[in-house]
């Protein structure tokens, strides 16, 4: 199973139902007194949020959120393996491994990882909900997954205009995979080479995709270089370091034994 999401920008009215559903489920905390608490400026921390692309005298919205890239910069750069892809290709965060280095936040070309560092009282609603001080992102509502069945993310469930579709890319008969195969739903900025699994059905002209918001290259950590560094340099470096340590240890041991013998 390869879950993917499509946002049909023709159907989307910008009502923000998806944002509200996401906040209610993933960001909000419930207090014992029955209150629902949100971070200040909570839309900023919604795992899907509107972004306006201006061109000429008009502007169009897209919803930006984690793309669950096949070649995910955040996963590649994570030094601890806290950012990872599960068996279905969903990019997730293992908070037990996260050391808050925030490299993933800066590596994401789509700038969809956020970090909330303020106060927030009350209980999280599930284990993948917003963790204060940690990188945060869309999980496709993985907490709704039961067994190995395809589930429905909160934003998809909430969308009254059927503008959000969620399906299995490996199901050739499914609506989602057909829309992608026929080129009706397309991924933005293929030139980045990240292979996103969030697709859009653009409006006429497709300005939302050609002008899709990505960070300027000079402010993105060059994740491909880093990835290469990590895999081709750091691992050998580690192995070499460890090997040398073992070697030196062995030599030291032999020498110590020799010294002892001389005594």
């Amino acid at each position: 199973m390869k879950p993917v999401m499509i946002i049909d920008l023709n159907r989307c009215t910008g009502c923000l139902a998806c944002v509200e559903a996401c906040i209610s489920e993933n960001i909000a905390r419930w207090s014992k007194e029955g209150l629902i608490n949100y971070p200040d400026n909570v839309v900023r921390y919604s795992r899907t949020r509107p972004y306006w692309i201006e061109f000429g005298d008009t502007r169009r919205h897209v919803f930006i959120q984690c793309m669950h890239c096949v070649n995910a910069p955040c996963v590649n750069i994570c030094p601890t393996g806290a950012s990872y892809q599960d068996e279905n290709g969903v990019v997730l965060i293992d908070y037990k491994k996260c050391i808050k280095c925030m490299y993933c936040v800066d590596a994401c070309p789509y700038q969809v990882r956020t970090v909330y560092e303020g106060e927030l009282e009350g209980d999280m609603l599930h284990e993948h909900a917003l963790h204060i001080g940690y990188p945060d992102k869309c999980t496709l509502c993985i907490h709704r997954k039961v067994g190995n069945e395809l589930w429905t993310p909160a934003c998809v469930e909430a969308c009254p205009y059927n503008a959000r579709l969620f399906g299995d890319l490996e199901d050739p008969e499914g609506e989602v995979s057909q829309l992608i195969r026929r080129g009706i739903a397309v991924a933005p900025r293929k030139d980045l080479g990240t292979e996103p699994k969030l697709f859009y059905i653009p409006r006429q002209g497709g300005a939302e995709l050609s002008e899709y918001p990505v960070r300027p290259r000079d402010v993105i950590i060059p994740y491909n270089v880093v990835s290469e560094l990590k895999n081709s340099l750091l691992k050998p470096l580690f192995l070499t370091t460890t090997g040398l340590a073992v070697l030196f240890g062995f030599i030291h041991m032999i020498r110590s034994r020799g010294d002892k013998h001389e005594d």
Partner: protein
Amino acid sequence: MKGVRDEGKRRFIKFAVTAPLVTPLILDGLSADANAQVPIEYLNLDIENLEWVPSTCIICGQGCPLKIGVINVDGERRIFQETYNYDPDDPKYFAICARPRALGELPNHPDRIKSPMIRTGDRGSGEFEPISWDEALDILADEIRRYLDKPEKILVFAHQGGDKALLTEFFKLVGTPNITKHADTCYVSSSKGRWFVFGKDISPGAVYPDYENARYVVLMGRNPYGGFVSTPWAKSFSMGVSNGMRIVVFDVRYCEVCSLAEKYFIIKPGTDLAVSLSILRHLLVNNMVDRDYLVRYTNAPMLVYRDDLKPVEIFEENGKIKDFIVYDEADGGYKFISEAESPAIFYEGDYEGREVATVLSIIRESVKDYTPEWASSISGVDPDDIVEIAENLYKWAPRSFIDHGYKTVRYYNEPMWHRVNALVNAVIGSIGRVGGWAWPRKVKPKLPIKFKPRDVLSIPSYWEKNGYPLIDKKSYSMLAIKSILEGKPYRPEMVVVYLENLVSHIPSSSKVVEALLKTRFNVQFNTIWDETSPYMDLILPIPFFFETDAISLKGASKANIGQVSVFMKAVDPPPDVDVKPTPWIVYQLVKRLFPEELEKFEIFLNPREVWRWQCEKLGIDYEKLVRYGALKTYSSPDYNPLTRKGKLPTKTGRIELINVDAVSKFSDYIGREHNLNPLPIWIEPLWMKDGLAEDEFVPVDYMVNLSAINTWARNTRLLVEMIKWLEEDTVKINSRRASELGIRDGDMIKIVNPETGDELVVKVRTTRLVAEEVIAGAHGLNPGVHERGVVRFTYMPKHGLNTNLLAPFYIIDGFGSSAMFDYKVRFVEVVG
């Protein structure tokens, strides 16, 4: 991009230095040390077993079916999510907007009224203290009893809510004929304007704009994505966009649908009528009309005398015109239309010595001066664009139309404007057609009781004979206030406000306050505090709609299909909240006042018995309805120009381009610049009469799908955060005007209505995408001076716009509706 973290380079350097040091440690499995910092306590909600309770939203009049996701936490039922609901066999239609998605905040909202409250300070002070339900009900019953022999002195404002119908029946039993809704400050100008064409009030909900099948749609002052009462239409609109529908937008500001439009025009406020008249002229002058449609379904070929517009000759039966004289082009003779082979739609001649012409020729003559250049000089729209729009409407007809609008009480000329738009759609033959204006098929569940009020002179009947012949006799909130102020025909002494916010919702809040200070006793049924609360004597808290089963099913009609839905209780009110449902309150009042009638009200203590009764009457499967919450009643709208009945309630039974009834009733207005003129003519908006001074603006508030004056949507934290994110807690002023006045983006400024002296402080966003004449802001996001005493608005934005707080008390003569934005405010100073 908002909130960019611009630290990439710095992080990269940090990374380059630290990564080689950290990585071996991490890869060695030492990262487990980080575990200590991870907050791992969470509720672990059983989302898999979420219970979806069907209900119906009451924020606006549409009543969209929704599902409320309830989850159990330590034995307490809490609201977790909300989504839309639909007939399980027809999921394509209906939707909910953003407003009802913050329900979970409401049970424990800090502004909630938690028990009956009695006024303790002066009226208007906002000082209240709790009392028991017994005390509250005794007080209210005693007050009502005082008026049992003169019930007309009780004035009831009730428009919203699932139990509203029961409350109004109760007050009919009390005897008052004065029970009003608030459509006069919402859409009456268009519904009455369209009366001229269709012979009956055509409210916005009485038209189904068939976006899904349309090819070309002109939106004027209408934003289906942001507007009120819009979600089923918005859904149809989004389907139309998907289907390639072409869109043109006229508005005083850039709005969401402008991004979808092939062209949009930011025009001067209240000048759309000029554009509509010019479109009509272009169609008629160039014979771009659907002749067959006009002959078959309209009175376009009817011959009328030029001097008085009366039909030349008619055959009348039971007050209806069964036949009328036309000019038959086949043989050049005058005949009854039933006998004519080829009735002329354009013809001018004489009949027995008097000049006659067809109705369509008279209209063409009436609009002949409204050239595109003329319309351009008023509205600022390029003449070529007006021509192009007219020609596209004709080209794509009948799958094209000018949208019918919703909020249509903004400018003085709106009755005429919406009449002209209906005429445009009629001459291109798109009314009652697939892809045009269709007729929705409605279901109206009735109650098992019905009372008649006392046969006394009612407020609307008085005003109907005194200046407002086209008053909407179900919606006259402004004229009701006028009755209190002027004592005509008498002064109501007791005001009952049921889920209404008069002070915020009626133009000229200061006059509404003045009226509420003149009455003897005011009582409000409400859920949370609003701007009207300080002026009440007694406040009775009722549950939110999701905390009780309402006593009636809801007929939802503004979609491709007709549908009925339930209001079902999802959660109980919190233990510290002492609210009572309306049926219980009514029952207690009946017990005190009309014990002999008590038996009739017992059924309402068990609302599901009422639903069952209504289902039987409507032929709906009750068990299925309760299981799913919403069931369709009709599968498609009515695509017949004269409705399924085959006739309209006009004198001719046809679409009347000149209303025969109006010609006799309003003959005095022929030739006058007046909304009652039977002919389409230009009427200037009021603000235009003597222009704008350099520091003056026309205040315009527009709808966003996040706020609502009458209920709690604008008071919830989540929706307010959305409003702030969209910067809708501000007012928009044209950049050039702002610059000239020394106003900068982000300034707080004071504005005043020089006529009334009412002031407001608002926060400014400057933009070039708003008309230079206006100061525009989202509807109702400023409480003005009405946050007082214990009446608090914890989360509501305080520096947006509410035009009603500044408006003069102006009522459109003839119609009784408001001209909500048709006045001027003056920029006073920057205050912060």
